[in-house]
C-alpha cells in the first residue's frame, strides 16, 4: 500500500521533504474572481414550502365551488384550512357533500345503462355505498396515519379523506360523458362493469395522491401504512359494489340482494362474465343485422 494514501495521525503535521518547494498561499479573492458561483442545490430548489408560506394557501374556501377549485388546483389550501382547525367541521362537511353529490350524478349515469328503476336505485346505492365505505375505513386510516408518525387529528384525517373522495368523484364526473356514451351503445353488463371499474380505479389513484400530499403535511414519516390502507379501501369499495348489486344490470325486484345470497366480489364478477358470455351470440347477431 502506498504510504501517501494514508491519513496523517490527528494532531501531527505531515513532514515536508527538503526538495519540495514552498508554495505561496493564494488569497481567497483569487478563487472568488475566477470560479463561478455554484448553482443552487436541486433539493433546495425543489424543497416543498411549509403550509401557509404561499399566500395562495391562505385564500378562504367558500362554498361548493370553492371546494372544487381548491381540491383540483390548490390541494395545499385544503390541507392548510384543515390544519387551522377553525370551522373544520364546515370544510369537512362541504368536502363530503361535494363527493356525495358528484357520485350521485355518476350513479345516475351508471343507472342509465338499464334505465327504469335503476335511474334512482343506482345513484342511491352508489352514494350510500361510498358514504358507508368512507365511514368504515376512516378509523383504520386514522390508526395507520398515526402509526406512520402523522400528527393529524381525527377531523383532519376525515377532511383529507373527504378531499380525496371529492377529487376522485370530480374525476368521475369528467368520465361521465364517456361512460354515458358507452351505456347507450352497448348491452354487455360485464363490459360496462369493467369500464366503470377502470374509471373508479383511475379516480381513486388521483384521490390517493391527494391523500398522500395531505399526510405529508401532517408529518407522515412513511407511506407504507397508507399503502396498506389504500388496499383495504379498494377491497371494501369493490366488495361494496357486490353487496349493493345490481348496480349496472337491471333492477331485481328488491333494492339489495336477498340475505342468503352473499358473494365475494371476484365470484360475482366471474358469474357476471359467464352470464354475459351466454348472451354474447345473440348480441353479435343483433349487431351484425345493423351493418
Amino acid at each position, binding site marked *: 500500500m502506498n504510504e501517501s494514501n494514508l491519513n496523517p495521525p490527528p494532531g501531527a503535521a505531515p513532514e515536508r521533504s527538503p526538495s519540495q518547494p514552498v508554495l505561496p498561499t493564494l488569497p481567497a479573492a483569487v478563487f472568488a474572481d475566477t470560479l463561478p458561483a455554484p448553482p443552487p442545490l436541486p433539493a433546495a430548489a425543489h424543497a416543498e414550502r411549509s403550509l401557509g408560506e404561499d399566500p395562495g394557501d391562505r385564500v378562504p374556501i367558500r362554498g361548493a365551488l370553492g371546494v372544487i377549485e381548491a381540491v383540483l388546483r390548490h390541494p395545499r389550501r385544503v390541507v392548510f384550512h384543515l390544519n387551522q382547525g377553525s370551522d373544520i367541521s364546515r370544510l369537512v362537511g362541504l368536502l363530503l357533500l361535494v363527493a356525495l353529490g358528484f357520485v350521485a350524478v355518476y350513479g345516475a349515469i351508471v343507472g342509465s345503462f338499464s334505465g327504469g328503476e335503476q335511474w334512482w336505485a343506482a345513484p342511491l346505492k352508489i352514494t350510500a355505498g361510498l358514504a358507508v365505505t368512507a365511514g*368504515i375505513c376512516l*378509523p383504520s386510516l386514522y390508526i395507520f396515519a*398515526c402509526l406512520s408518525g402523522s400528527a393529524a387529528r381525527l377531523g383532519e384525517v376525515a377532511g383529507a379523506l373527504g378531499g380525496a373522495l371529492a377529487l376522485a368523484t370530480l374525476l368521475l364526473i369528467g368520465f361521465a360523458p364517456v361512460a354515458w356514451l358507452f351505456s347507450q351503445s352497448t348491452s354487455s353488463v360485464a363490459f360496462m362493469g369493467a369500464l366503470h371499474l377502470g374509471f373508479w380505479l383511475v379516480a381513486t389513484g388521483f384521490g390517493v395522491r391527494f391523500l398522500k400530499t395531505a399526510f405529508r403535511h401532517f408529518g407522515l414519516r412513511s407511506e407504507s401504512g397508507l399503502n396498506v390502507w389504500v388496499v383495504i379501501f379498494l377491497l*371494501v369499495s369493490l366488495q361494496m359494489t357486490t353487496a349493493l348489486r345490481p348496480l349496472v344490470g337491471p333492477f331485481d325486484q328488491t333494492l339489495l340482494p336477498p340475505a342468503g345470497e352473499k358473494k365475494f366480489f371476484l365470484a360475482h364478477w366471474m358469474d357476471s362474465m359467464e352470464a354475459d358470455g351466454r348472451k354474447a351470440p345473440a348480441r353479435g347477431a343483433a349487431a351484425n343485422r345493423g351493418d
Partner: protein
Amino acid sequence: MISTQTDPVTFSLGPLLRGEAEVIAGWITRWTAGHTLRQVALIATGAGAFGAAMGSWRAPEQAAFAAVKLPLILLATAAGNALLNGLLAPLLGLNLRLREAFAAVLMSFALAAAILGAFSPLMAFLVWNLPPLTPGAAENVTAYSVMLLTLVAVIAFAGVTANVRLLQLLHRLAGGARGTAARLLLAWLAVNLLLGSQLSWILRPFIGSPGLPVEFLRAEAWHGNFFESLLNTLRQLWPEF
C-alpha cells in the same frame, strides 16, 4: 410540516399510536389512576367493538358475549400477571416499580385494543358479506377460512404493533440498553401468552359453532387447557406425534 404540541401528562391516543416514547415514558413514570381508567376504557371499547363484530356472525347474543369476553381477556391477563411482570423487570435488568411494569403492559394492550377497535367496522362489513353460519352448510368451510384468516391477520397486526411500541418504550426506560429491553419483552410475552391463551380457552366460544347453542361459557369451560387441546389436534393430524 405541521408540528403539534402534546400534553405530556394527559393520556391520549395520538402519542400512543405514534409511539412518542418520551411522552409514553412520562405516563409510565408519572402514573395516575386517571391514566389507568382511560386505558381500561380504551381496552373495553376497542376490544369490545372487535369482539362484537366477530361474534355477530353467529348471533346477536354471541356479539354481546364476545364484546364482554375479549376485553376481559386483555384486562385479566394484565391484572393476573401484574406481580410476575413487575418481578421480572428488575430481575432482567430494568429497575421498574410494580405499577410502572403494570402501566407499560396495560399501555401495550390499550394500543392493541385501539387498533382492533379501528378494524371493527371492517370486520362487521366482512361479516355482512359472509354467508350466515348454518349447521352442515358446505359454503361455511370457505367462509370460516376467510373469517379465520382475517382475524389472524388483524390480531397479529395489532399484537405486533403493540409489542414494537412496547419494545421502544422499554428501550428508552432501560437507557438505551437494547439487550435488556428485548429480554424483558420476551419474558413478558411468554408469561402473557401463557395466561392469555388459557383465559381465551376458558372464555370460549367467541364465534361459536353453528351446531352448538349460543352461551357465555361452554359447560366444559374449566375442563382441559389450550395446550392440551393443541396437542390433541396435532395427534389427530399426525398420529405418530
